[in-house]
């Protein structure tokens, strides 16, 4: 390579950069459906890039979808099968190569509203997304949230209308913040993460009895926040991880809160991590 060639390459790159950052065409789709509470609905969402919001819908609608997407990049589909009672929202099929600048798209957004009186099986999968999942007040039977490189806030500001079987969170390299997971009223909470910072706020109206919370993170920090009055059994499996267990007392291979036996709700928390921190703390 000569100096002239090197200089030409740099100059070419500088000249082509502005052209690469051209304008994008956006398309907006809004869809809603009349309320029908005759049977549960299975909702599947795949969303690749952008902002994602989930929340309760107003009266009269089974669901409402509000989607703004880059027209020349994605080929989305919003399908409701009335016979099978399934709603599929997929904004993941791409028309071309996704560039780095597309990962920070400020305008591409999906808002999904679901009626609180309809029992739901929820399956959410998203990639490079900033997500706000306000699932409080819905009637979740089970829910699965799978994220890639996302910034996700999962909140239950109101108790789930029914007892939920399982809440499963599968997180890649992401930051996940949860609020009042107890209001999900799930019998089991499963968290699997490859790497990232995870904060599990385990406050809220848990169902009485034993609740299983399994947390598995390869690399990263897991922060467990539990309100007083809930019995806690914490069991950890770790390799290069530090555990901050507050005032939990070790009995056998696990750590217990002082009122574990008397508590109406018992959280059995199993944490496994390779490298990182596990922090347990009481909320005041």
């Amino acid at each position, binding site marked *: *390579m*000569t*100096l002239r060639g090197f200089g030409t390459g740099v100059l070419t790159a500088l000249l082509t950069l502005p052209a690469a950052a051209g304008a994008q*065409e*956006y*398309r*907006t*789709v*809004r*869809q*809603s*459906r*009349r309320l*029908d509470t005759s049977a549960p609905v299975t909702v599947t969402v795949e969303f690749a890039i952008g902002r994602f919001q989930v929340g309760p819908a*107003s*009266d*009269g*609608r089974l669901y409402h979808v*509000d989607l703004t997407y880059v*027209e020349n990049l994605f080929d989305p589909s*919003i399908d*409701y099968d*009335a016979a099978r009672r399934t709603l599929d929202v997929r904004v993941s099929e791409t028309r071309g190569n996704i560039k780095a600048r597309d*990962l920070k798209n400020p305008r591409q957004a999906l808002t999904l509203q679901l009626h609180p009186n309809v029992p739901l099986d929820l399956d959410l999968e998203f990639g*490079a997304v900033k997500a706000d999942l306000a699932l409080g007040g819905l009637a979740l039977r089970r829910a699965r949230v799978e994220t890639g*490189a*996302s*910034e996700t806030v999962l909140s239950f500001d109101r108790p789930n209308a029914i007892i939920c079987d399982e809440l499963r969170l599968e997180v890649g*390299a*992401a*930051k996940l913040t949860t609020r009042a997971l107890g209001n999900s009223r799930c019998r089991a909470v499963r968290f699997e993460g490859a*790497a*990232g*910072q995870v904060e599990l706020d385990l406050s809220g109206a848990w169902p009485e009895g034993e609740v299983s919370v399994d947390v598995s993170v390869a*690399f*990263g*920090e897991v922060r467990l926040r539990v309100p007083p009055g809930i019995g806690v059994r914490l069991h950890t499996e770790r390799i*290069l*991880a*530090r555990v901050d267990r507050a005032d939990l007392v070790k009995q056998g291979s696990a750590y217990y809160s002082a009122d574990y036996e008397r508590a109406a709700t018992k959280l059995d928390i199993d944490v496994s991590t390779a*490298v*990182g*921190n596990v922090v347990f703390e009481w909320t005041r």
Partner: protein
Amino acid sequence: MRHGNLLALTGLLVGAGLPAQATAQATAAPHVVSYSVTTSSRESGARFEWSDGRALEIRLRGGDVLVDGARVGGYARGGALETEWRALLAWTGSLTTDEAVAAVRSWTPEGVTGSEAQALDAVRARFDALRAGQTVAVAPPAPRAPRPEIAEAVAAAEQAAAEARVHVHELRDQIRNSVRVSVGNGLEEGFRPPPQPRFTTPIEAAFHGIMGLLGAFVALSAIGFGISFFGGRQLDVVASTVSASCARSFFVGLFAQPLVIPAFGATIAALVLTVVGILVVPVAIVAFVATLIAAVLGGYLAVARVAGSAWMKRRHGDHGIEGFGVLRSVAYGLAILLAVWLPAAVLGWVPVAGTVLTWTAAGVTWALATTGFGAAILTRGGTRTTFGHRFAPPELPPASLYERSGPEISTAEWMGHQR
């Protein structure tokens, strides 16, 4: 124009100002169960799905008005029909299905004439056939003609807002100035404002880390290229010392580090004691710091030169001792040396492991810089070859750089020749 339509619709349906309300008139007959709108710069459309599986789709695209894909007329881009149509879609997109059906059935756009009117009639005929599951009344968000007192209040509010904006700008400037002063004072007193918590995803953190690493590579490469151009021989002498006397260079650099401050102090003290030297103390401070930076940076680049030339020998069969090869070897070497930071840049956000990786990279970099610093001291900044030799491997033929007859000899060789 649109407001006129909305007003008419309001009066037609519920009267002004009433909120949406449903009157329960459920019907078992086929009715619309789903409603969707699609808008983009090129087209806009609405789709209705019936409970019996039928669908109605109306689109305005490319100057054509399409009903279920068939052209029923045309429209002018940006004309009355398209404007009213887009306004209808913008409003009904947020309504329930029953409300949307009621709204489109009552749609009466104004100002649509000519061929657009024909298309509008065709669309409205299809809208009239729509049936909602429940008869509902909708109140469009129509701004009504403001009463005089309201208009006055609005004008007063706008005036107050304008004044408030002026005050806000003044306050903003005051706050900025006071913050500048406070921060300046705080920094002078050794105060550092606490870092603001800011969320970064792991991808962002890794991206920032890699970009930082790339920036360091570019900056060091630029310095390395400059030194190669203007002090290539000195750089080669330091590099040869690193190569030939690596351990010695490291320990010299290691033991020299604690002596830097005393040496600096002694220099300043000596200048002050001479009284006349006080005048050159500022110059001495600058010169000392510049020399120190040059020694450390030059030493580090010399280590990069050694690493890069070894890499070039492995890949290309030569050490890059002439012309552009020198620059390439420095660039390769810097890439190799900075690669130790790559794990830290990518995984630096991981608790514990990130810290370990960062400190490991820092330790390796310190060791390399110390070695280069020691070599720079041993060679007196690349002017002595006592501890080094030609920067050429033994297995290669004699390098031409120092053995070429004529003016192309190093300063060190020239000085040795003089002795």
